[in-house]
């Protein structure tokens, strides 16, 4: 009666530390330019090297410019981090997928793409959206930079077994509804603290029907439910996705691995500390109105009215969010005028996301009042999109086609939304100031973002 999580966790316990604590083996560690240099520097300062350098991989994504023709130094403050990452990765012997090199991209996009992420692995990165990788049936979670040092030095972490939560998503997605809409609605219903101290497993017919890229989007926002990890049991869809990727096992070894991976599922009688089920059939295209991912609304929805909120603390929070976002209580969310559109981030920058956005953009023009960007998640995504002519679709519609990285998702590379400007963004966080001081962020799917770019307002993609 073990859960999928139990099976992976138990198989990785090197040493039981008591009181639910374990020394857990870490099979993969990914580094990026923002937290990677700190972890590597701290490691080398102690006179240590990575315990297993073959399990560690690095790329530059957060603080590098996404401008066409960029180099690592195009954004100078980020250039310092990029230079540090290159130097330290070389000193430590860590394989870096550098700018312009196959494999470079947002760390949570390039990992699955290269086959570095496999079912049953434990995988960490100094980034909270490491949970994305759970889509492949890996136990993947974000760590701080000091925990990162521990993992580099020992290939393990001292961890406490979390509680477990299953989120069953049943039913079929309606027209114009994507994994992004599903997860935003789910967060809206359950709240951003629902999964705190828990590891989440996503299950149910809607998840089983999803492609791996859709599952990556779903798991990406696990941390927005408060959970450090989100996982989907590997299945035939997973195995087909992995086969043939550069770092995936091949031939007989692949078959042997698949045999092993087939055992990775939650037993029928497995118990969860929380078990919730949602019917996704009624979910529509979704957009956030406020400053937390739980501020999610169906596109037909209206902003909340603080007056009708009984709890004074909540009332104040809603009023503050409306003020920050420049919205009125009870206002329909559709129709709000948009200044910026950002299609990118580890939530939605894979090839299927760009195809969905391009299908909407094709034959249209970006509204004159809108600046719209498409930032592919990796060099491989960029090349694939260009091979399919998607870059031309975007460019001729008036979108900017940029270089792979995190870009405006977190604005660590200086690519900010101006104070007071309203952005529709396919990223995962609409926190105060996330896309720049005073920036107003509405989270949505790639298709909804493309629709906003064309119409210049928050718009129901099904009506285009």
């Amino acid at each position, binding site marked *: 009666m073990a859960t999928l999580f139990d099976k992976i966790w138990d198989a990785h316990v090197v040493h039981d530390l008591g009181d639910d604590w374990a020394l857990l083996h870490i099979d993969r560690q990914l580094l990026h330019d923002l937290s990677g240099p700190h972890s590597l520097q701290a490691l080398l300062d102690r006179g240590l090297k990575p315990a297993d350098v073959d399990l560690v991989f690095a790329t530059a994504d957060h603080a590098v410019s996404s401008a066409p023709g960029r180099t690592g130094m195009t954004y100078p403050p980020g250039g310092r981090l990029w230079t540090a990452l290159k130097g330290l990765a070389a000193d430590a012997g860590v394989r870096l997928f550098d700018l312009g090199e196959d494999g470079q991209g947002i760390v949570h996009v390039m990992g699955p793409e290269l086959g*570095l992420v496999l079912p049953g692995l434990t995988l960490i990165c100094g980034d909270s959206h490491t949970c994305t990788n759970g889509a492949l049936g890996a136990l993947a979670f974000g760590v701080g930079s000091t925990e990162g040092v521990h993992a580099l030095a020992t290939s393990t972490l001292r961890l406490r077994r979390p509680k477990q939560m299953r989120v069953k998503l049943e039913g079929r997605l309606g027209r114009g509804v994507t994994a992004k809409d599903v997860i935003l609605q789910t967060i809206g219903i359950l709240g951003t603290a629902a999964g705190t101290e828990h590891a989440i497993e996503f299950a149910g017919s809607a998840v089983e029907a999803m492609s791996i890229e859709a599952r990556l989007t779903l798991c990406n926002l696990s941390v927005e439910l408060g959970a450090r990890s989100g996982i989907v049991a590997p299945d035939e869809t997973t195995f087909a996705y992995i086969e043939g990727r550069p770092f995936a096992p091949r031939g007989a070894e692949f078959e042997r691995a698949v045999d092993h991976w087939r055992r990775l599922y939650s037993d029928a009688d497995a118990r969860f500390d929380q078990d919730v089920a949602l019917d996704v059939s009624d979910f529509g295209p979704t957009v956030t109105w406020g400053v937390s991912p739980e501020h999610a609304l169906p596109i037909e929805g209206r902003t909340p009215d603080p007056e009708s909120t009984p709890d004074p603390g909540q009332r104040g929070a809603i009023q503050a969010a409306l003020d920050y976002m420049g919205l009125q209580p009870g206002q329909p969310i559709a129709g709000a005028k948009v200044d910026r559109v950002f299609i990118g981030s580890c939530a939605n920058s894979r090839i299927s996301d760009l195809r969905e956005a391009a299908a909407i953009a094709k034959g249209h023009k970006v509204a004159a009042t809108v600046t719209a960007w498409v930032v592919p998640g990796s060099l491989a995504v960029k090349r694939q999109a260009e091979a399919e002519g998607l870059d031309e679709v975007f460019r001729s519609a008036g979108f900017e086609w940029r270089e792979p990285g995190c870009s405006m998702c977190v604005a660590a590379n200086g690519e900010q939304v101006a104070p007071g400007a309203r952005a529709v963004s396919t990223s995962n966080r609409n926190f105060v100031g996330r896309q720049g001081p005073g920036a107003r962020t509405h989270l949505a799917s790639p298709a909804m973002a493309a629709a906003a770019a064309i119409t210049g307002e928050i718009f129901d993609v099904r009506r285009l």
Partner: protein
Amino acid sequence: MTPFVELVGRAAPLPLANVDTDVIIRIEASVDRQNLGRHAFAPLRYNSDGSERAEFPPNQPAFRGAPILIAGANFGCGSSRETAVWAIQGMGFRCVIAESFGDIFYSNCFQNGFLPIRLSEAAVTDLMAQAQAGAGDFKIDLAGQVVTTPNGTPYRFDIDPLRREGLLEGLDDVGFTLKQMSLIRSWQARDREERPWVWATSGLRKTTA
């Protein structure tokens, strides 16, 4: 790491839920490692012209330099940036009390000798009220796992024994685990037999470039 044993001092109230790590430290300010304390809580703490907002309690004379922060639920949710902990420490805080925390933030606290305390909603409400009244010093006894409020009410808190020991002794996890390397190596030797594909990355390391 400096051991954390006991702490006596004022507590600054921050009665907001879901204070996320982007609010605690803006990402571009994260790069300025020497001045993290100055950038902490910038959107709440400063006006757009850079002057201090009087509404932010730690800006008020009664709470300046207070070592304890009492916060709303789900404090530190969001990103994994450890600079969030360093920024709060940079302001002079050594402990934060809330009903709940973002998971990664919570773990990061212990890596830095910084104590996050989880208490019930009712307890936090009382602490918040007493902090707001500015009535006097709070006392935190980590060994005994008790927070005592200025009016003398004791609240017991739970903390993992391993984490408590780590804080009390200023223990360094890395040094500790390095002593267990032989255990780790024998686990790995077995794993290489059972899951060879996990380890088969070196041959490909150069050819994929």
